[in-house]
């Protein structure tokens, strides 16, 4: 198969795809780098020449930079925690044989098919609205003062909404992992005298560790870029400004493309640090 000739042919045939992907990645990246060194204000004079590292220093020294990093990490961490914990529990539950299994499984997956903008709007208006929302009615039914979710508990609200969207993904992957567990291992541990909780801790959870790392890795990549949920709920107010939201504000609200691009470069660096960190854990976990 791998003769000199076939290898050359393979390279030629793969070239269009590789060139397309490279272009897709390199063009925006170089443009971002280019603009990050420019003083570029579209509505206030356009291209005002080179700026050196001024954009970079301005972006980091801005009072909203560190809070935005913290917010990003809180949202990513919170959503990961909720989706993994509840994903494992739901997967355990769905693995049990029960009546109407097919329908229940489809229902569980359903939130994943709802667009982020739509689900955020549904949550904001139907559940978390302080006068007409379901939660408000529930609170009032118990005689409590309804929570103004978007302002009083803005970060938890966003974490709940995003978790709701990503829970099906985690559940699905963890469910397939649970189904791949050898039943004889569970029976063996039962004979070895391990009660249900210890079977979970010593047999099921280690078996799931690989699937959990995959869930964490994939979700982190997507969660770092959460945007629509913030845009339609709080609009970045009440301490919900993430790094990606801050970049959006610099570019579109302040109309400062140079400053936004510098933020974009920081975002790339942050994502890469987290990616390398995760890859190490995953690599360790996938090895054995």
């Amino acid at each position, binding site marked *: 198969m791998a003769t000199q000739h076939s290898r050359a042919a393979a390279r030629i045939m793969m070239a269009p795809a590789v060139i397309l992907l490279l272009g897709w990645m390199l063009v925006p990246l170089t443009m971002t780098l280019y603009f990050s060194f420019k003083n570029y204000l579209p509505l206030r004079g356009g291209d005002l020449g080179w700026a050196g590292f001024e954009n970079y220093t301005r972006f980091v020294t801005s009072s909203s930079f560190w809070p935005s990093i913290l917010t990003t990490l809180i949202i990513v961490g919170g959503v990961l925690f909720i989706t993994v914990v509840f994903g494992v529990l739901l997967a355990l539950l769905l693995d049990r044989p029960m009546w109407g299994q097919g329908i229940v499984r489809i229902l569980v997956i359903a939130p994943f098919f709802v667009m982020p903008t739509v689900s955020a709007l549904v949550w904001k208006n139907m559940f978390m609205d302080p006068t007409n929302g379901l939660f408000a009615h529930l609170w009032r039914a118990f005689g409590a003062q309804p929570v103004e979710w978007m302002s009083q508990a803005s970060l938890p609200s966003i974490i709940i909404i995003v978790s709701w969207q990503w829970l099906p993904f985690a559940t699905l992957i963890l469910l397939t992992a649970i189904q791949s567990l050898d039943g004889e*291992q569970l*029976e063996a*541990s*039962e004979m*070895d005298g391990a009660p249900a909780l210890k079977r979970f801790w010593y*047999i099921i959870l280690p078996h799931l560790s690989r699937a959990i790392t995959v869930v964490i890795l994939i979700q982190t990549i997507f969660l770092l870029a959460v945007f629509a949920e913030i845009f339609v709920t709080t609009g970045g107010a009440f301490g919900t400004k993430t790094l990606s939201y801050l970049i959006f504000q610099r570019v579109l609200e302040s109309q400062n493309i140079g400053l936004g691009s510098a933020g974009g470069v920081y975002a790339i660096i942050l994502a890469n640090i987290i990616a390398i960190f995760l890859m190490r854990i995953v690599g360790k976990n996938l090895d054995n």
Partner: protein
Amino acid sequence: MGRITLDKVTKRFGDVEVIPPLDLTIEDGEFVVFVGPSGCGKSTLLRLIAGLEDVSGGQIRIDSKDATDLPPAKRGLAMVFQSYALYPHMSVRKNIAFPLKMAKMDQAEIDRRVDNAAKVLNLDSYIDRRPGQLSGGQRQRVAIGRAIVREPSAFLFDEPLSNLDAALRVGMRLEISELHERLKTTMVYVTHDQVEAMTMADKIVVLQAGVIEQVGSPLELYHTPRNKFVAGFIGSPKMNFIEGETAAQHGAHTIGIRPEHLTASATEGLWKGTVSVSEHLGSDTFLHVHETGLAESITVRVGGEFPVRHGDTVYLTPEADKIHRFDEKGLRIA
């Protein structure tokens, strides 16, 4: 102690009765083999004893105590599974220590027992590896090690050798037999391989469709099978069955004659036939003889060298006192 008594034990899956009421006593220290074709209920029976399946009726007593409703862990039995069921994320040492850890034994005692098991089974050299890095035979040893550290009153084996290659299987067979000699603990062993049953068992239980066809020592089963099923299942190659006139001459519906109880000759004999295939094993040669007018094919065991080829004529003579006679229902005529 490890005396297991099954009293009218029944198992139903929905409407299907897999095991009709069944009585069986396994004596302390005995090596009992459940053997039968696949789907005969032998594994189910073992799982009922282990407690991994609930009985639908009847009683299981272990050392004369009622164990019918006890959970598996409380029965004092240890099981070796077909897939070995080792815990892949734990080292061999941790695998073997697991049941002791679950029993909350103190660490010094755990170490002592694990080291002892490692010595008995020769697994010192790979005690810190994980199951994924071991060969089939090594995994098998670890699985047995995990069973013996608990010092159970009986061992249950569910087709433990079926995932090994032929050479290893013979070796492990011997090791398990030796282990039984050394530990003198009751062992219940499930297999579909009659050679394993014959070589290892003190007592063989032949099962078909959940019913016990016969219980007895290997040689009892070989010499006096109670019916046609047992006669055909025990012994390799299979017993030849002859019906019709020849059987009627012996006052039976069917007669059975084992390949090793037939003599073949190129010149004279009782029955004439044509050689179809001759299988040379070195020590023995098995002839498959066709066109005898008795049965479709008759298998004969002859000595190491017997110069016949495909299509040659051969004469067969049975040893008169080794003929088994069966009636219309397939039961032995004494």
